[in-house]
């Protein structure tokens, strides 16, 4: 069930009603039932996966947690008679057992994922894969990467003693399958989301209106901008668009992805808010970032956090990495200090690239990101010298330049999403210099991308609205707070205007793909 479908709106509306009518104790049960109704609407065959992950998560978390609890009890009782070594040895024994449980859990979950992706089997026997895939008749189950990462995070947190395991199996099920975040995330931490999920929420007009406003804002971005510009992005991928055409593609794709992804997340977070549940922000005006490190602290934050907590950090503090860093410290001096970090970063970015899609262009995407992060880290002293001499640092213009530079760089990296053929991607990058073809801007080719002048106008208007809202957000904080202080009439007028614009101008419905539809002949 697509977020932007009417049946989803009706589903959410009805759910909200029931949620606030039913006794508060049962609210989380309602959410659980709703999540599974939502999930089943995507197809029955996917149920197996989410149930499998939920069960394995629950079992693993209870085992690891009970061992740690027993360990704490044991140590507390025999506090005096055990020496430090004995205590350490006992703790290591427990830790060893827990690690095995953790590894089994990880292999089971990701193993199943590999089977469903048919990758494990392909090398051995093509026929076996087809039968298995045929039998499971699978594309990728809905939101598997989001709920699986969230569950893995939960179990690892328990292993690290950061969080205590939830005893109630159904509450764990809800944590894994909370429907707003199923489609596009955000990937939440148990400690942040679970308390809110299971606590009781009385009806709060302010939260509800904030939630609905954000959902409407998500719809506006998705329907009016993202889905409209999608046609041009599809057309610009054609081989004949090089140089400026390619740059336009990168920019249009940036607009589409930003509006589509942040729009989807707005709907998800807005939905959460309507239920009184505050989910982590996944985007903080990423196109205002001045350097690549800042960009990845503002774009798809929850994935970045997950990769940092569960891949980058464990990797860089792991045993072999420590040995390596000791080695490089000794005989490479200063640079030696950074080698281990860069290796860990490369592995993490390789993993993030693969997470987006198991094809070469996503690996290239990951490596490019990593390259520029390492580059900007290395050039740090150079920048410092440069700024010391010219002192541009705090000038407004330079800030804008940095943002423009970062926007273009990230667009050119992100566009690799659309080019599975990596050599084509690089030849297109090269064409920026070899065949600029600036004339595409005014020689009318823009009008045969599937967009009329009116469409461009609407997209322009949409971008302007997004920009103003972002600028206000960057300067004065939450736009909705600001709006709530304004007189009610103005607030309602704005909301109604946004609703009508989205309803009328949104690119949705049958009118949009009926080429010779009768009514267009009127």
């Amino acid at each position: 069930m697509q977020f932007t479908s009417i049946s989803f709106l009706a589903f959410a509306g009805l759910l909200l009603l029931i949620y606030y009518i039913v006794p508060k104790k049962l609210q989380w049960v309602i959410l659980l039932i709703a999540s599974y109704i939502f999930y089943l609407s995507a197809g029955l065959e996917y149920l197996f996966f989410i149930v499998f992950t939920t069960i394995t998560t629950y079992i693993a978390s209870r085992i690891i947690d009970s061992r740690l609890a027993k360990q704490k009890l044991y140590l507390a009782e025999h506090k005096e008679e055990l020496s430090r070594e004995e205590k350490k040895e006992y703790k290591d024994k427990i830790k060893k057992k827990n690690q095995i449980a953790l590894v089994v859990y990880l292999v089971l979950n990701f193993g199943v994922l590999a089977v469903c992706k048919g990758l494990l089997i392909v090398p051995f026997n093509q026929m076996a894969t087809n039968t298995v895939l045929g039998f499971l008749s699978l594309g990728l189950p809905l939101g598997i990467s989001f709920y699986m990462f969230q569950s893995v995070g939960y179990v690892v947190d328990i292993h690290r003693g950061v969080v205590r395991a939830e005893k109630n199996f159904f509450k764990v099920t809800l944590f894994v399958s909370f429907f707003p975040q199923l489609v596009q995330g955000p990937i939440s931490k148990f400690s942040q989301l679970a308390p809110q999920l299971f606590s009781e929420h009385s009806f709060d007009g302010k939260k509800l209106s904030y939630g609905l406003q954000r959902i409407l804002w998500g719809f506006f971005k998705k329907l009016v901008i993202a889905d409209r510009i999608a046609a041009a992005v599809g057309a610009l991928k054609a081989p004949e668009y090089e140089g400026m055409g390619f740059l336009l593609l990168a920019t249009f794709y940036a607009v589409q992805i930003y509006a589509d992804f942040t729009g989807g997340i707005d709907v998800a977070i807005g939905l959460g808010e309507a239920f009184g549940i505050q989910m982590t922000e996944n985007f903080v005006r990423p196109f205002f970032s001045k350097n690549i490190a800042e960009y990845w602290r503002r774009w798809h934050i929850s994935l970045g956090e997950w990769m940092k907590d569960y891949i980058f950090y464990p990797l860089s503090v792991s045993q072999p990495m420590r040995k390596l860093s000791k080695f490089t410290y000794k005989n490479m001096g200063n640079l030696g200090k950074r080698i281990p970090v860069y290796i860990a970063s490369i592995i993490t970015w390789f993993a993030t690239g693969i997470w987006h899609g198991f094809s070469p262009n996503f690996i290239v995407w990951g490596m490019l990101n990593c390259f520029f992060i390492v580059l900007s880290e290395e050039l740090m002293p150079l920048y410092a010298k440069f700024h010391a001499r010219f002192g541009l640092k705090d000038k407004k213009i330079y800030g804008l330049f940095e943002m423009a530079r970062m926007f273009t760089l990230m667009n050119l990296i992100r566009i690799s999403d659309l080019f599975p053929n990596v050599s084509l991607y690089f030849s297109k990058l090269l064409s920026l210099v070899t065949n600029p073809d600036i004339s595409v801007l005014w020689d009318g080719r823009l009008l045969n991308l599937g967009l009329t002048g009116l469409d461009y106008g609407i997209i322009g208007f949409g971008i302007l609205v997004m920009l103003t809202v972002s600028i206000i957000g960057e300067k004065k904080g939450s736009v909705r707070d600001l709006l709530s202080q304004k007189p009610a009439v103005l607030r309602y007028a704005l909301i109604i205007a946004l609703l009508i614009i989205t309803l009328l101008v949104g690119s949705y419905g049958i009118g949009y793909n009926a080429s010779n539809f009768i009514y267009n002949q009127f």
Partner: protein
Amino acid sequence: MKKKNVMGICTAVCICLLILWLLQALLMPKYMSESQEGALIAEYYDEAGGNDVIFIGDCEVYENFSPITLYEEYGITSYIRGSAQQLIWQSYYLMEETFKYETPKVMVFNVLSMKYDTPESTGNLKHREAYNRMNLDGMRWSMSKWNSISASLTEEEKEWGGNWSYIFPILRYHDRWSQLSSEDFKYIFKRDEVSDNGYLMQVNVKPVTSEHVEKPIADYQFSENCWEYLDAMKELCEKHSTKLVLIKAPSLSPVWWDQWDAQIEEYAKKNGLLYINFLDYQQEIGIDWNTDTYDTGLHLNVYGAEKLSSYFGKILKDEYDLEDHRNNEDMSSQWTKKVNSYNERKKLLEDIRDNKN
């Protein structure tokens, strides 16, 4: 404070709904100048009542029969509930709805739509969606309308909003905001009558050039789905003790295979229904394919329709001894107005036709 802002919210919601309702009325296609077939269904409701005969079917009824001629020659009061490419389930639910407004003595159903067993089987799906809108948007809300929508949705429509886009047509027509014309504003609430009791008059003449032919098909059997709806119509009419007459209008295309004709004939005989295939009586009706059609034989023009109506009127009168309403006062005053507007329209269209070429 709490009460005040609840009040504020309510007024805001009401204003918003009002604006949306107005926008929807504005954005709905009006069918006043082009594709006038779209306006036919909605016109019935002001004229409902007092009709002895109701025609149900697609363009083969609303282009080939003239209720005004039936009244002028025989005093038969009738109405055509026709719409573009009306499929058999749409005909059934339309018939079901009509019985809520009146109980005619005779229901006339054109059996051509027996050949389409699913929305997809009509071929061009873009047009099919347009026809669905023409058939359904005009209907007033009732269970019949809801069932008709659910039975008519094409796969594409189901994907893009399904029943919702009929409950809130603005979801379907929202993108017409950039194509609005003066017609949309002029007819936002009221509509002019494009038909005469459901007959969409055509005065042009375009003679038949050559015989219409279609490729032979492997299986001439009508589908189970269509037979069920035909049975349902029969039972519905029996329930209201209304006579059901099956007809096949004399349109030369789409081709009406003999194997199809045989099946309907057999069905009619088995169920004691009158079935007339006007294709067999072209001479008796006096159809001249050089003057009586406006599109090389696909539909009759007004002259052909009048001939066909006078022929069929005689059968109806003899078969079901329908009352001659020309001599009771309250009826005739209302119908004389209809006859005059029919003649005015005929004259107007003929003038346009004559000084155009």
